[in-house]
């Protein structure tokens, strides 16, 4: 395996990691910071992708599609928050699980009802498609570079919002003690609705951006949901930095595991068996990573120590 291929694969891993962060960003806010278990987050991601596909189909404009994705997901988020989640802040986490599980069913099948059972078309815009040549002769899709940029920008923006602004402080205070922060004069309900909408909009944005290079179909949100939870937990709940680092770790593990594990097994096994075993292990790799991280650090890499 050539050095340049290895470098390229590491780059792919980093890129995939940043993409994972983009997918996890909204969840970082809703689950990581606000402490709400929202299983329907993947549905918001799907809503974004479908809205983008619909708008891109009609207008042909990718930028409008992105705006529509964020808008539609934010509206869905506000509806979900005000109609369902708001009643469950005081409740057990388990009630949130059941309620948002129910929402997944409603969103998924509702979308299928509206858009049919077949995947929709959403492609990268012409100005961002095709490869560019990086130093060292690596050819890299332009669109993916753009995704990295957006992902890092979102990470920086969220980090600033949460740690540096008063809104961020109030959100975190609300997670600690909602009643108390309200008694100090902060309209925590409205703030939470807004933050939830922001988280939803980020999910929608990710759905649209990532949907353009993947398939836009019903159920696309569920694998993402699990991955996003994995990312946040590895990084430590509540930490944006942790989520970014967790995402990159997962991206690298997944990409490099898939490539190198079969090779490693070929060193001491018959090729057919090695490929199968290596691939099997590779598909478990991120879960093994999460298990190992949590055994080593029970509250994730950057989570608050109890």
């Amino acid at each position, binding site marked *: 395996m050539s050095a340049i291929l290895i470098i390229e694969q590491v780059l792919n891993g980093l890129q995939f990691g940043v993409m994972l962060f983009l997918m996890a960003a909204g969840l970082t806010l809703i689950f990581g910071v606000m402490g709400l278990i929202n299983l329907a987050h993947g549905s918001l991601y799907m809503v974004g992708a479908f809205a983008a596909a619909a708008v891109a189909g009609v207008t042909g404009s990718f930028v409008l599609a992105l705006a529509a994705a964020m808008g539609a997901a934010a509206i869905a988020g506000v509806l979900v928050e005000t109609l369902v989640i708001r009643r469950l802040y005081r409740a057990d986490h388990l009630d949130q699980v059941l309620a948002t599980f129910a929402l997944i069913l409603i969103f998924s099948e509702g979308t299928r009802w509206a858009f049919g059972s077949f995947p929709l078309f959403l492609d990268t815009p012409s100005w961002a498609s095709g490869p560019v040549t990086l130093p060292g002769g690596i050819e890299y899709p332009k669109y993916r570079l753009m995704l990295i940029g957006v992902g890092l920008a979102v990470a920086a923006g969220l980090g600033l919002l949460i740690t540096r602004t008063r809104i961020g402080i109030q959100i975190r205070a609300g997670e600690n003690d909602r009643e108390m922060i309200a008694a100090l004069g902060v309209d925590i309900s409205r703030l939470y609705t807004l933050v939830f909408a922001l988280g939803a909009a980020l999910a929608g944005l990710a759905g649209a951006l990532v949907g353009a290079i993947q398939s836009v179909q019903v159920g696309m949100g569920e694998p993402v949901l699990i991955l996003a939870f994995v990312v946040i937990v590895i990084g430590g709940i509540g930490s944006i930095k942790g989520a970014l680092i967790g995402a990159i770790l997962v991206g690298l593990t997944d990409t490099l595991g898939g490539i190198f594990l079969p090779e490693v097994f070929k060193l001491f096994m018959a090729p057919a068996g090695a490929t199968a075993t290596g691939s099997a292990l590779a598909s478990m790799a991120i879960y093994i990573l999460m298990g190992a991280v949590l*055994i080593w650090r029970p509250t994730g890499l950057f989570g608050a120590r109890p």
Partner: protein
Amino acid sequence: MIRETWLNAATLTLLVAVPAWALVVDEPFTITLATRAVIFAIAAVGLNIALGLGGLVSLGHAAFFGIGGYAMGILAHHAQTYVPLEIGPLTLAGTKSMPVIWLTAMVTSGLAALLIGMLSLRTAGVYFIMITLAFGQMFYFFAISWPAYGGEDGLSIYVRNGFPGLNTLVPIQFYGLCLGVLLLVLGGMFLLARSPFGLALNAARQAPGRVETVGLNGQRVKLVAFVISGVITGLAGALFADLNRFVAPTMFSWQMSGELIIFIILGGTARLFGPVIGACVFVLLEHLLGGLSEFWLVYLGALLLIVVLFARGGIVGLLSGRRAVHD
């Protein structure tokens, strides 16, 4: 309190009466459906020992359900192909005897629960949810890509396994067997919740520091609860596989774990009959709504939503008029 007892009695009566009625009017599928509900109930009661009493929200209990299923699948597969099972130097004949299969299922899922529990109990809260999920997913991906027993296609058994003195191929007899197991498990749960062990477990959930300061090892209590819970769910897995005469990696999927949790919340957390009622209602809804329209899952979602929003403490909480024990 009184009303909850009545509710439990009513549930038991229905569990006996409905299949009996189905037998009389010759509706064997109703019996199958009831068997499915009862087996899910066993699995969920098992999970509820960890989740309801111990506060251990495991999103990886499908691992034990699946292990139980594969214990049945593998043993029966070897029996039906007359190829002995070789584990290292050990050579075992397959078997079609339920008691042997059950024992194997319980021992293997117990061992798995011990291992997973020891590692997972280092964490708490949401981290615990996620690390158990991780273990479940490892089993899932392993089962999918492990070719020996069918990989993703799963493993079919042609004839249901036998139980001494019963003809398990007759639906009502197999149902009776499963109901018997459920009653045993419920009885065990009832005693356990009130026992010194249950008391310590309950306290370890509510005030972990307190348990340590009276000199008890709260973590070990939780671990034992997790193992007991895994064993019961594993047994349910073996029964489920026997009901379908089929095992597949989907038994390991996180959706399966999620469904077990849904049964518990739907019925009422930490209620003796919560998981039973939750499982029965869910299976019934699935059956009734499934025929309604292509988009029946929307109705299911809406119904579940109504339960969470308006019936705190699940169905038992709603019907017995008492708020959830813990909130």
